[in-house]
């Protein structure tokens, strides 16, 4: 039996536009020394990285490395968890969004989120998209906005004849695309996606990847995935997180390597990244 292990992931360069050179990239998030702690237990430690505008940035890593915790720091979603604290800073377009004087509602207004499991409101398909618009006062051309959002989420053709039907009557993949439509309808700058395809079949997954690809000229996407192929397909930049062990044996998530996706998958500079992307670990 051969001992060499072929890379299991191939980076699809054909579908991807070449990434602009680094110096032309605009930083949208600057994360500096971020620690995320649940009731005294450190989940993520010392993350420093920059997320660039109009790119898809993937966060990959084994289960328990704090990917979800980390992405939820970007829109203060962890505020909802009792006992959660974080130190370090995240600057969004130059502005610190972690301070207690920053309104998390305003942060989330700019930085939308799509969750792991589809979570449509128990309302009609139309109202799922329209409710946020109405509450946020984007009432002009409401129907047009709903149609545009659904079209961008590649769902319009499937639901245009039954907009008044319950969103819960849709399939899982359709529900997730509805959640994406709902998130982009209110025109955030960034869309965070926490394993958006983990509960979906390959066709629905492909639809979601395609729409990320199509929409990234207008939005910035940050996507958590434990599917390396998915990261290789959609992401321009990839951050690899892993579980490290502290001196007293405590385990925490840590950013190991952050680079262009192509480099992460073909020429990683860290041994742990290489082990992970070649399937030797995780």
């Amino acid at each position, binding site marked *: 039996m051969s001992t060499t292990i072929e890379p299991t992931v191939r980076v699809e360069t054909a579908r991807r536009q070449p990434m602009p050179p680094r110096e032309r990239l605009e930083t949208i998030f600057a994360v500096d020394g971020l620690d995320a702690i649940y009731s005294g237990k450190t989940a993520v430690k010392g993350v420093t990285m920059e997320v660039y505008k109009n790119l898809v940035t993937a966060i990959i890593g084994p289960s328990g490395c704090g990917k979800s915790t980390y992405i939820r720091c970007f829109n203060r979603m962890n505020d909802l968890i009792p006992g959660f604290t974080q130190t370090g800073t995240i600057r969004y377009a130059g502005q610190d969004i972690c301070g207690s004087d920053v309104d998390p509602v305003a942060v989330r207004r700019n930085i939308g989120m799509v969750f792991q499991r589809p979570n449509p409101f128990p309302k009609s398909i139309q109202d799922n998209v329209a409710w946020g618009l109405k509450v946020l006062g984007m009432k002009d051309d409401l129907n047009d906005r709903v149609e545009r959002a659904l079209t961008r989420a590649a769902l319009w053709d499937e639901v245009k004849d039954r907009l008044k039907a319950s969103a819960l009557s849709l399939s899982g993949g359709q529900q997730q695309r509805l959640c994406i439509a*709902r998130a982009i309808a209110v025109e955030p700058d960034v869309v965070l996606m926490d394993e958006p395809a983990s509960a979906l079949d390959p066709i629905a997954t492909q639809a979601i990847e395609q729409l990320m690809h199509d929409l990234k000229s207008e939005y910035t996407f940050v996507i958590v995935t434990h599917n390396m192929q998915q990261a290789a397909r959609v992401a321009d930049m990839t951050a690899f997180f892993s579980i490290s062990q502290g001196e007293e044996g405590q385990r925490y998530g840590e950013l190991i390597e952050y680079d262009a996706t192509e480099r992460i998958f073909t020429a990683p500079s860290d041994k742990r990244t290489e082990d992970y992307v070649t399937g030797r670990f995780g």
Partner: protein
Amino acid sequence: MSAQGLTGPGLRVDRLPRRRRVNRAMELLAWLAAAIAIAILAIVVYSVARRGASELNLNLLTKDPIPFSFGNQPQGLANAFVGTLVIVGIAILMALPVGILVAIYLNEFAPAAIRNGVSMVLDVLNGVPAIVIGIFVYGLIVVGHGQSAIAGSFALACLMLPLVARATMEVLALVPNALREAGLGLGIPRWRTTLSIVVPQTVGGIVTGTVLAVARVAGETAPLLFTTSFVGTQTHWDPHHALQSVPVAIFELSESADPQDHARAWAAALVLLIFILIASLGARWVATRSRAKMAAR
């Protein structure tokens, strides 16, 4: 053989018949317990119906009682039914908003320590005997202001409040967190998400809890004796005066010397029972309907 086809090394077939017997016996016991519960209700309904049937007619609901009547003029307990309607109605108006808001605060906004503390206080309040509440309201309102239907409503509201709040908390806890996150993730304030997404999910449960609370307090006598029992025989709607109520009327009629009064007391009890039955069925219907609405269409 009962254990045919199940034999094999290590399989303790020898105990199988015994296990079956124990299973049977336990099933029977459980069935019996259920039967006893139903039987008690059936006996209560039957005995009330049998004794009250002779006076159960439209007059009971439409005619006022006639004091010291020796003739056979038709009379009823209209004043008591109207009084109970007013007293319980106002009690709902008092307890429902407060109960729901308490539950929303505790479940959606309060830190865990406050939630646990206040939940315990609600449980204690729920365990306070009705007569103690009656004395409390007597000392608080009746002394100095005199009896009134509002005082009675306030006493009943004190009894309803923990029931409504606890029932609402329970249904709020059933709303999946993913729905809250969905609203908040859109950049929508928490109060708005709570109001438009979370609370509508719980309407069925709130209605059920309220109806159960109403059913519980509609038959309360002790607090009303203290707060709204010195009444005449005429129908009034004004809650600023003491109003007759069904449980107090039943209590008073049961002390009467006239057997016809006794029959009327039974009939009034029967009406109360029927009302509670209909209310419970209605609540069930609302709850099922709202659950069906939540699920996929």
